[in-house]
């Protein structure tokens, strides 16, 4: 036993997969202890805020301000206002207005703006330009006004009695606040989703729930499969025929369709994560049953089983002591695969909108479902779905790697 364990942990594949899996588990356990926000709390008024550090503007006005003389500050400010699309548009207009293309450099912000300010005339008639395009250039021009200004901004407060605006503060262009001194800062490493929820916090919670669903579904499937496989394989005869009939029936029906039908018939309000896990488990046991049966049939005529019979042991004792230990490694491997399959099945169901009801807990599948409904993939809001895919892939990858590693240990023919 100890020897086998040592051998398992000497298998590179197993250790690699195991490390990834334990890493995921640790994050899932430790993260909620540090970040105690509710995973479904809506923090953003709006959809899909990009990942980043969110600094409260009002609080930063109130924080100590420092003056830093940074040479590139102005250039950066202008550059951040002027997108790549705006630059090409400006170039397009300038070329049409008769400036030689060689003289225009979209990368040189200051020169480009200079050329624009000197040449742009909203009334200039450029042949072949649509009205919509003309209006776009007028808007662009307005947004660029004041970009080259070196003045600061005044903060004014409304006098409660007179209603007049009174300047309360003035922010110069070289003033800085220290982020760590701003009262309210929120880091959203993966931004927010369509509901305005913190994606990372939600993702961790979803991973935990999905793992639980996987464990429950995998355990149910493995236990049922093991029990029926042992019974069919060892007892044989009519019992075997009946069990194999049911198993074959399940094998020919596409399970996922079955899963969809059952989930659908349960109804949205009764579909908690646990119910979904049970349904997945109930439709996944037959592979294990088949495999266990085959193993038991090859074991039941072995001499050590015969010797156990001759020693007067009961069927129960023989199954537990003389059959189970021989297939234990196999069952562990089946369990690992079933867990992985359970997590994927939940994701598949949820993407179709047949997963657990959406109000209580997130799951990896539900996050994918939400991202898809709100077209995150079309809008390019990668943070709403890509991390979810990565987590699903990592879990499946690590579990399958552990399985391959175990296979190599238990199956000497596969050792490299």
């Amino acid at each position, binding site marked *: 036993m100890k020897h086998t364990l040592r051998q398992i942990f000497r298998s590179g594949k197993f250790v690699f997969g195991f490390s990834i899996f334990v890493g995921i588990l640790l994050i899932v356990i430790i993260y909620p202890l540090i970040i105690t926000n509710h995973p479904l709390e809506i923090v953003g008024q709006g959809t899909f805020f990009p990942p980043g550090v969110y600094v409260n503007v009002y609080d930063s006005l109130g924080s100590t301000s420092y003056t830093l003389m940074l040479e590139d500050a102005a250039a950066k400010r202008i550059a951040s206002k002027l997108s790549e699309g705006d630059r090409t548009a400006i170039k397009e207009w300038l070329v049409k207005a008769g400036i030689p293309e060689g003289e225009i450099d979209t990368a040189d912000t200051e020169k480009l703006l200079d050329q624009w300010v000197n040449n742009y005339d909203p009334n200039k008639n450029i042949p072949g330009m649509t009205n919509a395009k003309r209006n776009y250039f007028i808007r662009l021009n307005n947004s660029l006004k004041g970009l080259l200004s070196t003045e600061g901004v005044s903060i004014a407060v409304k006098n409660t009695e007179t209603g007049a605006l009174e300047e309360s503060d003035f922010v110069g262009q070289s003033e800085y606040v220290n982020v760590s001194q701003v009262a309210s800062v929120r880091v959203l490493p993966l931004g927010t989703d369509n509901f305005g929820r913190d994606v990372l916090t939600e993702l961790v919670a979803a991973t935990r729930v999905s793992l639980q669903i996987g464990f429950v579904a995998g355990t149910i499937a493995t236990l049922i499969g093991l029990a029926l496989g042992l019974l069919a394989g060892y007892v044989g005869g009519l019992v075997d025929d009946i069990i194999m009939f049911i198993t074959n029936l399940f094998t020919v029906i596409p399970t996922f369709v079955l899963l969809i039908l059952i989930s659908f018939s349960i109804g949205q309000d009764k579909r908690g994560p646990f119910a979904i896990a049970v349904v997945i488990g109930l439709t996944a046991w037959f592979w294990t049953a088949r495999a266990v049966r085959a193993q038991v049939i090859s074991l039941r005529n072995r001499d050590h089983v015969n010797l156990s019979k*001759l020693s007067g042991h009961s069927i129960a004792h023989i199954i537990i002591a*003389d059959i189970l*230990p021989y297939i234990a490694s196999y069952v562990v491997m089946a369990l690992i695969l079933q867990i992985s399959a359970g997590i994927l099945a939940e994701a598949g169901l949820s993407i179709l909108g047949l997963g657990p009801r959406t109000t209580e807990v997130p799951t990896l599948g539900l996050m994918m479902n939400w991202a898809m409904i709100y077209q995150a993939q079309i809008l390019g809001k990668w943070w709403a779905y890509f991390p979810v895919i990565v987590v699903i892939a990592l879990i499946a990858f690590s579990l399958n790697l552990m399985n391959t590693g175990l296979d190599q240990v238990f199956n000497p023919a596969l050792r490299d």
Partner: protein
Amino acid sequence: MPVEKELYLSASGLTKVFGFGRQKTVAVDHVDLNLYEGEVISIVGESGSGKTTLAKMLLGLISTTEGDIYFQGKKRDISTHRKKKEYWKNIQAIFQDPFSSYNIFNKIDTVLLDCIHMRGGRKFPYAKKVELMTEACSFVNLKFEELTNKYPFELSGGQMQRLMIARIFLLKPKILLADEPTSMIDACSRATILDMLMQLRKEIGMTIIFITHDIGLAYYVSDSVYIMEHGKFVESGSADDVILRPKEPYTKRLLNDVPKIYEEWDLSTV
């Protein structure tokens, strides 16, 4: 044949068919067999002739397709677990391959304790159990102190087969079915194993069915011999009759494979 002795085990028309249709194999084909108290009989045949299948039917480990088995004059009844257990107190076996005969997850102690428990010793104080196990081990020249808490696969093939004999020593069955007990172990251990079997037979007055592919060995150990070919007994009788005056060509062929039968199995040297 000693008439006054009790007929222990007999079989008539015993048949075993595996599979059906095209894959049908008739492993044992209408076999009759009589085993009297205290006797040693040998079943001799080439590999695949159905010896092990016959043994398993006699042991009640597999079902029979056809035919009856009588035990001590009555038709054998092993329909319930209790009846089977009772039957197996009387008939035990040693299998061909010691390496697959043991549950690799059980310690040697478990193997031997099972036998003590089967003989009604479940409530014995542990010291008494150790005493019994030590006695059984020393009978086969093993030291229980060295074996305790070890696993059978830590032993050599010969030692494992000796442990099997120790098991029989504890169980003291009326009949022992030894299915090629020496064919998978090294030549040096063979004579020792056979010797121990014969000694055990004397000690507890056991009746033995000895299965072998080696006709010379059969001559050495047995009173009567059954020659088996393709599931049928083609010739049977006293060891002297069958082996010294064979009638069937199959028997003669088996004998030709052991040309130096008289020198090799000189009774005094083994």
